[in-house]
C-alpha cells in the first residue's frame, strides 16, 4: 500500500487546492501559500508536492485553458479526490482528538468543529 499519511506542507497544499477550486494550478497555489502563510516557496516545490499527492491518489488533474500571460500555454488544474477528502478529515479528527486530550484546553471545551 502506498504511504497515505499527510505531511504538514502536504496538508496545507491539499487544503489550498480545495480553497482555490477551479483556479488550483501550481503557480496560483504557490501564490496563495505565500499570501496565507507569509512563507516563501518555489513553484517547483509546490509542483513536486502536487505530483506526490496525485501519486497517493489524493488529487486528480486535467489540463485547463490557456491565457495570454502564459504565452498561450495551458495550465494543469488540480482537484481533490474522495480519498483526498478522507485523508484531510482523518488528519483533522486526529488533531482534534489530541487537542481534546490536552488538559489545559480540554476544560475550555475548545472545539474546532
Amino acid at each position, binding site marked *: 500500500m502506498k504511504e497515505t499519511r499527510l505531511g504538514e506542507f502536504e496538508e496545507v497544499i491539499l487544503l489550498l487546492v480545495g480553497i482555490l477550486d477551479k483556479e488550483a494550478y501550481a503557480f496560483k497555489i504557490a501564490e496563495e501559500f505565500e499570501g496565507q502563510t507569509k512563507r516563501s516557496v518555489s513553484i517547483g516545490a509546490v509542483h513536486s508536492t502536487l505530483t506526490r499527492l496525485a501519486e497517493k491518489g489524493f488529487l486528480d488533474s486535467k489540463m485547463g485553458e490557456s491565457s495570454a500571460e502564459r504565452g498561450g500555454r495551458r495550465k*494543469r488544474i488540480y482537484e481533490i479526490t474522495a480519498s483526498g477528502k478522507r485523508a484531510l478529515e482523518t488528519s483533522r479528527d486526529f488533531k482534534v482528538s489530541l487537542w481534546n486530550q490536552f488538559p489545559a484546553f480540554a476544560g475550555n471545551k475548545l472545539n474546532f468543529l
Partner: protein
Amino acid sequence: MPPTLAVRVLEWFIKDELAEEVLGDLDEKFYSTQKVKTTTHAKINYWYQVLNYMRPFAVKNYRSNSNKYIMYKHNIKIAYRHLLKNKGYSFINIFSLTIGIAACMAIFLFIKDETSFDQFHSKKDNIYRLDEVQNFTGTKEQKVALSMPGMGPQMLNDFPEVINYSRYHIQGKRYFSKGEMGLTIDKVFLVDSTFLDVFDFELITGDRATALNEPDNILLTQETALKFFNTYEEATGSTIDMGERSMKIAGILKDVPENSHMQFDALGSITSVTNENPDFNDQWGSNFLNTYLLLEDNVNIAALEAKFDDFLVRHMGEDSNDREVLDYYQLFLQPLTEVHLASSDIEHDYNNYRKFNGSYISTFALVGIFILVIASINFMNLTMARASHRWKEIGVRKAVGSLKGQLFNQFIMESVLFSVFALILAFIINLAFLPFLNDAIGRQLSLGYFIESPLSILVVIIGAILLGFITGLYPALYMTAFNVVSILKGNKTKGNKSYFRSALVVLQFGLALAMIVSTFIVLQQLNFMQNKDVGFTTDKIVLVDLNREANDNFEVMKNELLELASIEGVTASGQRLGNNFHQWGFKVKTDTGIYSMTPSNVFVEHDYLDVYGITVKDGRGFSKDVSTDEGLAYVINEALAEELNLKNPVGTPAAHSWFPDDSLGSIIGVTENFNFNSLHHRVNTLAISVHSDWGYDEMSVKIKGDNVQQAITQIENVWDRHVKEWPFDYTFLDQHFATLYESDSQMSSVVSIITVMAILIACMGLFGLSSIMISRKIKEVGIRKTLGASVSQIVFLLSKNFLTLIIIAFAIVSPITYFVMEGWLQNFSFKIDVNILLFVLGGLISIAIALATISYHTIKASRSNPVDALRYE
C-alpha cells in the same frame, strides 16, 4: 520577457510532458513579479524558480541509446565490480591514496595558516619592523626586535620615504578595575595615535582617527571589555582604572585575529608617556619597544637601510665624526609579512605570537608532495601489477572490437573514480583527525577553509580528477599496449622487469627509515632538554607576580611564609629564569684601567642563589649581614669571569655602567654556568646584583613536601593579608620551562605523525607488491616443495629480495638523515650526539616491519600445497 537562457536550461532538463504547464506557470510568475518589482527582480526570480525545478519528479530520465553513454555506464559498473571482487587490493589502493591526499590536505592547511600571518593589513607591503643588530662586548652579536623610543619619530622627521610610524610599547600585565570588579589583564601595550592608521585592526566602536590621540585613552578588545561591561556601547566612553590611573575607554577593538603576530588585550595611548616626558620622542640608548614604519610605495629598502648609519651617528654620536655608536648598533628593516616566519634568529622578540621557523614550511611542503607522490606511485604500481589478472578481459574486449582508445578510457575512468573516492575519504579522515592534530601542534586548522572558499574546493576536486588521470595514464597505456593474440594464446607478456618497483620499495622504506630515525633523535633531544641539569632547581617553585604594594610588604610576607612548614625558601627577582635576561653595561677596574662590557643582568633578592640552589664556586653569595651587598656587590657567572680574563675575579672593583668610576662596588662571587636562557642558546655572560629598591617583578617560593595545593592556599592567605591592590597570580617554573620547548615538542608530534604515515604507506605498498611478486613465483615454490624444500627455506627465499632492497635503502638514506638531523640539532646549543646505534635500530625496525608485512604472503605461499600450484601444468 523571461531570460532566454533560463528557459533553455529548463527545457533541457524538464520532462517533456511537464514542459507546457511549467513554462506557463513560470511565465505567469515572471509577469506578476515584474508588475510589483523590477524586471531584474523578475529575472532573478525566474532563475530561482528554474533551479528549483531540478527535482527528481520533474527531471527527464536520461535514457540514451548512444554507444558512448552505454559504455560509460558499463565502465562504471565494471570498475565497481572490480573494486568489490578484489576487496583487499581495492582497499590498499584507495586507502594509500587516501592517506596521501589527507596528509597533503593537512599540510596545506598548516602552511596556509602559517603564511596567513599579518596578511590582513591592507598596507602590509609597506609596513616594516625596525630591528637592530647589537654587538656588545661580553655578548655575542645578536639581532634584536627592539628599538629605541626616539627612532620612530626621528625617522619620520629625517626620511621622506617614511610616511608614518607606530611604536608598540609593552606594559605587560596590568591591574584593571571598575568598581568592585578587578582583574589583571595580560597583554597591555602603549601605542602611538597612528597605530590604527598603520594597521588594520578593526574598531567596533569609537573613532579610528582620534581614538588614541589623548593621554589616558585606552582601547579594549571585545573579550577584555566584556569582562567589565555588559555591552560594547556601555563600555565605550566609560572610564576604567588601570592601576592608579583612570583611563577613558575610547573604543572597542575587535578581538585580535589568531594570525596576527601582535596580540593584545588593551591598547593605551603612548601620549600618556610623552605628555609627562616630552623627551621620550628623542630618547636614545635603551631599547625596550618595537617600532613599525610605514613607507611610501616602491621604496628601495637597501638604499634606505644604507642611510641608517648616518642617522644613528646624527642622533647618538657626540658630533658627526663620532662614529663609535656603529660599533654597537646597526639597524635593519624587516617586512611585516616576514615577522612571523623569518624571525627565528632574532632575540628579545617578545611580541611575536606563535613565532615559527619559516624554513620548516618548505620542508613540510616537500614532505606533503613526497607522500602524495609515493601514494600515487603505489597506486600506479598496484594497478599495473593487477593487470596480469585482467589480460583475459582485455583480450576479449579487443577481440570483440574494442578500440585502444575505448580501453584506455575505461582504465582512466577507473582510476579517476578511485581517486575521487579517495578524496572523499580523505575529507572524512581529516574531519575526524584534525582536532587531534590541532591538539598536538597547538593550531586551529579547520576544513572550513575549503568550505569558505568554493574556488579552493573546485581546485581540490579538479586536482583529484587530475591525479586520477595522471596515475591512471601509465597503467592504461601499459594495459592497452598488449598484443591481443599473444594475450589470448596464454603467453604471459615478458619484460616487466621490476627495477621500477624495486626502486619504489627502496624509496618508500628509505623514507620510513629516515622518519623512524629522525623521530628517535627528536625525542632523544627533547628528553635530554627536559632532564638536563640546568644548574638550578626548577622543581616545586611557584612564581608570584609582584606589584609595588607587594614589594613594599615583601619582607613581612617573606618572614611569614618562611614560618610555614610547607615553605622551604622565598626570594624575588627582576626577571624570570628561562629567557635571556636584559643586557646592560657593566664595568670592572683592572690594573690597566676601566674595562666595559655588556653582559646579561638580573637583580635579585639576597636569598636568590640559595633558593634556586645555584652553586657559587668561588667567593660567596649575597648576605643580609653585609650592607654593601645591597647595590654594590656583584656575583658573576663563569662565562663573564672568563670574558673578563682576571686572575682572581673575586674582590675586583666592578659596577653597572652608569656608576661613577670612583664609586664602584666589587665582585664577591663567581657561580658555575647555569642555563638561565633556554637550552637553544649557550650560556651568556651574566652579572647578578641585589637592588631591593628597584622593585622586584616576581616572588619565587620554593615548596617543601608534596602537598603543593595546600602550600599555595597558604601563600595566598599570606598574600591576601598584605596585598590589597593586586590579585594573587601564580605559575610554576617548570610549566614555564615546558612552554619554552613547546615548539620543539610540537615538532616532535609532527615528526611522529609523519613517521606513522610513512610507515603505513610503505607497508601498504610493500604488501601489494609482495603479493604480486610472490604470486608469480608460485610455480617455483611448488617445484621446490616437491623437491623437498622446507617452509623456512622458502620463506627465506621469498624474503631475500625484499631484504636486499631494504639494506640498499638503509645504505642510501642513513647518511642523508644523519646530516639533516645534525642540521636540526644546530638549533640547540645544548644537544645530544647522534648515536649511530639509532640507525642500526631504525634499520632493524624497518626490516622487522617489512618482514611482518610480507610474511602474510610468504608464509601462505610456502605452506600452500604444491599440487594446487602445479596442477594446471
